[in-house]
């Protein structure tokens, strides 16, 4: 995280000599904080200032890439809470492949995951990685699974194998694929060498913060930069607290050994348990989650959660501006219009559905803003609505000539009637929850 102007000011000589070209040290500090100046412009900067500012200019949590192109990018996060800014790099979802399985079954699983995609508010949702585990003494099966996966998938691969000889051969197979190696045991010279020669990321595992720090420092001093941290715990409460402590150390204390993305290996009793654990870890800082099996409903729920948590709070989720059919509308069914802010759409469409009628719901392009905000910004007016209705050729597709507008923008009704000759504008209710009652009490067709 960047230092504030005041933090930087404390590190400067505070002489206001002006040698940097700025009249005061405070003003120079502010320019540094905004990255509009460089410390080298101050000839009197101390070594401590140079070291601290140098460290602060690196991202507090390193960006690590796996697989690709296109690679899965994780890390480089800057805040503890999404409302402070946003979370940037969504959690990677990995599917575990056990190499003891028959080749046919493995192929089927890979194919399922490869072909799985779902769409939600305009975003395509896919799994990101395969996590290949050596779960049998049979050495060849691991290598075979790696080969099958490479041949049948473009997704990144994480190797979970304690046999370094086997790992070495697998890494040769994946030499241009930027894999990651999951270590169940302490980092050794051998693993360092393997990771370095194959350009792999290393997921290091430890039972304590001290151990994790020493392994991370060891990896770093050996020249490895692509590190992912795994604190070994199967208790959900510890997982949450460990992840919080690691992320906070990196972001608030600039503690370099923990400045990497986090990995949580989840073991679950059943699929409900798995989803519960994965959900909490997804919200609280896990950058990779491994699912032991392919379950479409679970993927869909997790992808939806990931989309929600990683949405930029400054940019509302928008739905596509178009006509949405509620129920099974005919050309004579009523017509409603509102904006394309996702929450507005969800509430209005849900309440029309609750009322039990079928209808055409026109979602006009208001740049994702809610009704009043869009109206105030001039994005949801008689003119913009009329223009949109003409663009989508609504008049050819419905016989109704009545349109219900949100009660909050009653003032645009005259303007809309003027711009839409032949149409009667009906002012609806102000709250979506009143829609069923409104539909019962007002003639809208």
């Amino acid at each position, binding site marked *: 995280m960047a230092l504030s102007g005041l933090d930087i000011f404390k590190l400067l000589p505070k002489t206001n000599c002006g040698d940097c070209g700025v009249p005061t040290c405070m003003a120079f500090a502010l320019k540094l904080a905004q990255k509009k100046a460089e410390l080298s412009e101050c000839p009197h900067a101390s070594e401590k200032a140079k070291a601290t500012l140098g460290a602060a200019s690196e991202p507090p949590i390193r960006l690590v890439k796996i697989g690709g192109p296109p690679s899965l990018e994780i890390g480089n996060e800057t805040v503890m*809470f*999404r*409302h402070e800014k946003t979370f940037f790099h969504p959690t990677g979802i990995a599917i575990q492949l056990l190499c003891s399985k028959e080749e046919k079954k493995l192929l089927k699983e890979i194919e399922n995951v490869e072909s*799985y*995609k*779902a*769409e*939600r508010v305009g975003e395509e949702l896919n799994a990101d990685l395969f996590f290949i585990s050596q779960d049998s003494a049979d050495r060849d099966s691991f290598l075979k699974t790696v080969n099958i996966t490479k041949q049948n998938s473009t997704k990144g691969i994480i190797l979970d194998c304690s046999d370094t000889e086997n790992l070495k051969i697998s890494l040769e197979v994946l030499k241009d694929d930027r894999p990651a190696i999951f270590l169940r045991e302490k980092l050794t010279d051998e693993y360092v060498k393997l990771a370095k020669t194959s350009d792999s990321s290393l997921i290091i595992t430890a039972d304590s*913060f*001290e151990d994790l720090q020493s392994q991370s420092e060891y990896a770093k001093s050996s020249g490895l930069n692509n590190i992912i941290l795994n604190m070994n715990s199967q*208790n*959900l*409460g*510890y997982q*949450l*607290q460990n992840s*919080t*402590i690691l992320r*906070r*150390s990196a972001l*608030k*204390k600039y*503690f*370099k*050994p*923990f400045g990497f993305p986090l990995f949580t290996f989840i073991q679950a009793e059943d*699929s*409900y*348990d798995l*989803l*519960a*654990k994965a*959900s*909490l870890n*997804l*919200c*609280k800082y896990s950058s990779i989650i491994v699912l032991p099996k392919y*379950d*479409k*409903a*679970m*993927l*869909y*729920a*997790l992808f*939806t*959660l990931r*989309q*929600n*948590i990683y949405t930029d*709070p400054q940019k509302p989720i928008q739905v596509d501006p178009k006509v949405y059919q509620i129920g099974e509308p005919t050309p004579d069914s009523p017509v409603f219009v509102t904006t394309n802010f*996702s*929450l507005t759409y*969800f509430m209005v469409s*849900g309440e029309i559905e*609750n009322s039990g009628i079928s209808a055409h719901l026109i979602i006009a392009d208001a740049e994702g803003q809610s009704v009043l905000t869009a109206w105030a910004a001039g994005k949801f007016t008689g003119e913009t609505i009329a223009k949109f209705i003409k663009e989508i050729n609504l008049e050819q597709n419905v016989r109704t000539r009545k349109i219900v507008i949100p009660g909050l923008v009653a003032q645009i009704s005259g303007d809309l009637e003027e711009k839409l000759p032949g149409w009667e504008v009906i002012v609806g209710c102000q709250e979506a*929850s009143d829609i*069923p*009652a409104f539909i*019962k009490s007002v003639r809208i067709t």
Partner: protein
Amino acid sequence: MDFETPKENYSGKIIEVTIGATPEEGGTRSHTITIGGSTSPPFHFFEGKHPHPPRVAMEVFDKVPNKYPHSLMEYYRDVIEKPADMAKKCVEQYGAELISVRLEGTHPEKGNKSADEAAGIVRQILESVKVPVIITGHSHFEKINEVIKKVCEITAGENCLINYVETDNYKTIAASCIAYNHTIVAQSPIDVNLGKQLNILLTDMSFPAERIVMDPLTSTLGYGLEYTYSIMERIRNDGLAGDKMLAFPMLINPGYESAVVKEARASIEDNPDWGDQELRCAYWEIATAMSLLASGAELLIIYHPKAVEVVKNKISEIFNSKKGS
């Protein structure tokens, strides 16, 4: 540089709220339930106290909801029209820690049951189960005020959680809660300031702060969950930073809100990408509940028995980590 656990100082404390009353306290519950009391963010045992775990309630109805998911009906078919029996099943078979009675059938558009009928149902529930009870209303102000007034009166001393009041309609219900010793839910539409304002309005009319639970309004998974999630984190952070008007425990509704979305009802044939319907119906509640636990929920009303089981189980697992820290 040696590692040192980065702890933060929180000057505030979430208010402890107790629901229910035993015979000694003037009610008929076998025990009471207390939530709140935390002095650090959710489950941060390493830097604060969390005397009470979050609790899971289940819900029964005075009228079968129109959009009740098929997957849920499988569990409740025999009792769905008998709220007292359903309450018993929820507590004894599925482990509900509280029971919410949703009185939607009193809404003039949805059955228009009388206040006396509602009171009768609540009385039956209080007889059939001994856990603390939540009374859940609706948004038709005039009618719900009449209904809640009656229900508060006949349950005097039980310390029910009366769910809910909002800024445009709080005086009548709050006055009844004060008169008959009940606890209240203050609901606000996913907004920190409006939430705070309502809490101020309530305490200004001498409503005791230790009898207020906040409802930040639940948006379920995929339907604006991120708004609820972040508003709750902001409310909790402000409360822990010392803002007493935001230091209340929070109630959320993963059950009701998940049951109405299409993900709980659409078949796999209609939406092949969405996976098994039965699993999905439970998953939707689980993901909503677990993420909102992370952002500060203390009381959750959940519908799916599998979701209740796993969420309760996870809460106790998390609280097991309290010992070592």
